[in-house]
């Protein structure tokens, strides 16, 4: 998040509220979207008489958002550099059918009694397929300079064909013991609590370390009260989450995987040269080029990363549904793009956060599951999603204009 370590500015409004206000203004977009999420939850909570906030439903909601979320956090990078990837949904689908195919037709014959080995091999193959596809698309986009829209549109067609070839129009089971844990596994409550404890310790450790570093550099420190308040707030969120899902079956394995992936991606975006270059390229390609950034290399790597995440999404998908089907991953690319944009990623490039995309994805999933609980027809679900997307982006534009 934004570090306020300015040494030269005048003291403006001091005090906790003043600083909170400042932080709010500088991250307006993120807070707006969080508010929207809360509003949507309250809305559904009222209409369902609180049913949607029951531990089982909350647990399922978060589990359901994982597949598109993996795609969305990669999509942020793609869109930030001014590109688009229309193939990710089908790529995840393709990975899921390939993984299912190997389970049903190959491991079954080769290593019949070792489900865990088979699961690991399936994962490796799934990731490999994702990365390989990312390499091919990335190469065409970055080195052969074919627009990403075209390359990935073509990729989408090709993958649709490949899915049909692999499945032969049939559904392939992918439910070997071990493999199903990836998306359907839960951690025992105690393990959940241990993880929560570790996260809280890390949060506090991070806070003190960051303050220490700033002191070493002689920067003015942000108020300790504010730092403490934020850290405690995030800690409470984590604890609350674990508490709720533990009332059902425990922390969901796919959500844990997603959290790890999101933290890594967020770290890459904010703290590495690679991430900085992505934002620079999207912000002003010409300036980035003259600053000595190897644009081709950056974009190539981003599409490989996207492929990897699509691979993960495909594996989770296969494990989640327990099958590889011809419709696997259908339309997921659009959900991923919508999530990223809802979360504040600019279609003009240069702006976007992983965290925002996660919230965006959570909103999309909340809408779907909430409306399903209310027995609303699918037709209306799409209508509502479309309207929310446009409204959210409009609200953002309007906010910016009025500042």
């Amino acid at each position, binding site marked *: 998040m934004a570090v306020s370590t300015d040494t030269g*500015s005048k003291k403006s409004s001091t005090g906790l509220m003043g600083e909170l206000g400042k932080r709010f203004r500088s991250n307006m977009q993120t807070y707006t979207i969080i508010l929207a999420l809360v509003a949507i939850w309250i809305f559904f909570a009222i209409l369902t008489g609180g049913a949607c906030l029951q531990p089982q439903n909350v647990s399922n909601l978060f589990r359901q958002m994982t597949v598109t979320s993996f795609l969305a956090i990669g999509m942020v990078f793609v869109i930030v550099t001014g590109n688009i990837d229309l193939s990710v949904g089908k790529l995840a689908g393709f990975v899921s059918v390939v993984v299912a195919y190997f389970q049903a037709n190959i491991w079954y014959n080769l290593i019949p009694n070792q489900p865990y080995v088979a699961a690991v091999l399936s994962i490796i193959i799934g990731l490999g397929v994702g990365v390989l596809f990312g390499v091919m698309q990335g190469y065409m986009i970055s080195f052969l300079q074919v627009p990403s829209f075209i390359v990935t549109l073509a990729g989408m067609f090709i993958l649709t064909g490949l899915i049909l070839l692999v499945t032969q129009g049939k559904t392939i089971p992918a439910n070997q013991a071990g493999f199903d844990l990836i998306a359907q596994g839960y951690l025992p409550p105690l393990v959940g609590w241990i993880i929560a404890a570790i996260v809280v310790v890390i949060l506090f450790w991070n806070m003190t370390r960051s303050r220490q570093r700033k002191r070493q550099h002689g920067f003015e420190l942000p108020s300790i009260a504010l730092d403490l308040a934020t850290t405690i707030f995030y800690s409470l969120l984590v604890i609350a989450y674990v508490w709720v899902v533990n009332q059902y079956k425990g922390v969901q394995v796919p959500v844990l995987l997603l959290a790890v992936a999101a933290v890594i991606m967020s770290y890459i975006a904010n703290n590495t040269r690679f991430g900085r270059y992505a934002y620079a390229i999207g912000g002003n390609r010409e300036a980035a080029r003259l600053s000595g950034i190897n644009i081709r290399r950056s974009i190539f790597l981003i599409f490989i990363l996207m492929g990897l995440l699509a691979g993960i999404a495909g594996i989770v998908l296969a494990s989640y549904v327990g099958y590889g089907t011809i419709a696997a991953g259908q339309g997921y690319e659009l959900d991923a793009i919508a999530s990223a944009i809802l979360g504040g990623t600019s279609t003009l490039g240069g702006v976007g956060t992983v965290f925002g995309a996660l919230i965006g994805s959570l909103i999309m999933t909340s809408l779907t599951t909430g409306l399903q609980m209310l027995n609303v027809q699918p037709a209306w679900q799409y209508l509502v999603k479309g309207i929310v997307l446009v409204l959210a982006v409009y609200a953002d534009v309007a906010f910016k204009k009025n500042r």
Partner: protein
Amino acid sequence: MGTPILEMKSITKTFPGVKALDNVTFSVATDEIHCLVGENGAGKSTLMKVLSGVYPHGTYEGDILFEGQVQQYRGIADSEKAGIAIIYQELALIPEMTVYENIFLGHEIKRGFLVDWNETIRRADEMLKKVKLSVNPAAKVKDLGVGKQQLIEIAKALSKNVKLLILDEPTAALNEDDSDNLLSLLRDLKHQGVTSIMISHKLKEVISIADTVTVLRDGQTVCTLDAHKGEVSEPVLIKYMVGREIENIYPKRDHKRSDEVALEVRTGMRIARPLGDVLKDVSFNVKKGEIVGFAGLMGSGRTELALSIFGNPTGFQVHGDLLINGEEKHFARPEQAIDAGLAYVTEDRKAKGLILIQDVKENITLANLQEIARRGVVDGNAEVKVANEYRVNLNIKTPSVEQKVGNLSGGNQQKVSLGKWLFVKPDVLILDEPTRGIDVGAKFEIYTLMNGLVQQGMSIIMISSELPEVLGMSDRVYVVSAGRITGELPIEEATQEKIMHLATS
């Protein structure tokens, strides 16, 4: 002077963390040319944006009276209706459109539902005559030079029946001829009843054209001077703008002669392009600790020359040998040029230099992230520290290094661009129009900085269209004309006349 056409009373405008205008009072008489001067970030552009409705009524405090009436513009369309037209610091024409389309863009002449193109072209012709520009109205804007584009902007304003014309640094990117042309046009318009407000950092120009000058400093009106009473002169303006006197704007330095060659281009460099060579037979060298000026007219090929040694990002074929510290080099990308110790500060900071949506610190460190990163991870604290160092040294006016560069004033953006390339710590620094849009005080600071850098052994290639700057700062001057180097002059022999002669030969 006559009655005021415009009065702005107690205007205050604040942005988060910045009070850009603080109780400014500004009044313009009918049929005068009123110049607005002040340091970078003084609030000149902001004041004009308040006036033209870019910042609508309610986002600022104070009153605007135009022709005696209180005005409350909700947007730029309202001010245009009242007869105010603004031409921004950066041109806003659409390059792919024709001249006549551009002139009537947004207020097309219609017959029924359709645009009446014949009438449009006729009227466009009329407007072009008014601005004394002889181009085919059907020509595309991108094929015209900046000087002509600037005139088309004025034609566009005139087509809206403008009474008050605002020009924000109109001559910053123009050569001397085009500037003179524009100034004399403003004088003609004055006689036809168009009042003008002009913002400029070129004080000579201000003195030659202004009836009245208002000086802004730190968002406040310092004074308003009447040129016809002899109140306006360069030292006076500088004193009011900067708050102190600057005797010699080109600070002295010892011309140390070193024979060590830092950069050399030999065997006649040539850039081949389908439509004919951009550069022909170019050879030159730059010694260690030397400032070499590249003079010439705009469009003579100096920027292309600089880019071709800086990793050639335009991708045209370059022939010829480049030697750095005696070693032969071939750069395929700017990255390699930077690694070899080159840096290039572009003339076009908005399009090619800065990332406007990112903040000051990110822009300053972008070209040298490895210095503040370990194993690919950027140290955020070190970044803030570096950025603050350059903020202080270059006197960049910003509430903090976390301010978005797009929110800085034009001149301060230029300083960020400079800081970014100084952080690369190059051996050879290429400056392309380094003081474009920069105020006198800051110019002096930048020149002083340049002197310090060459004293420490850096070499500087300075491309500049401002002859006094070339003469004041260089150790040696190359003159470029139509893609060729037409002359090399040691500074002792260089004069304005000689350079102009070579530049047009």
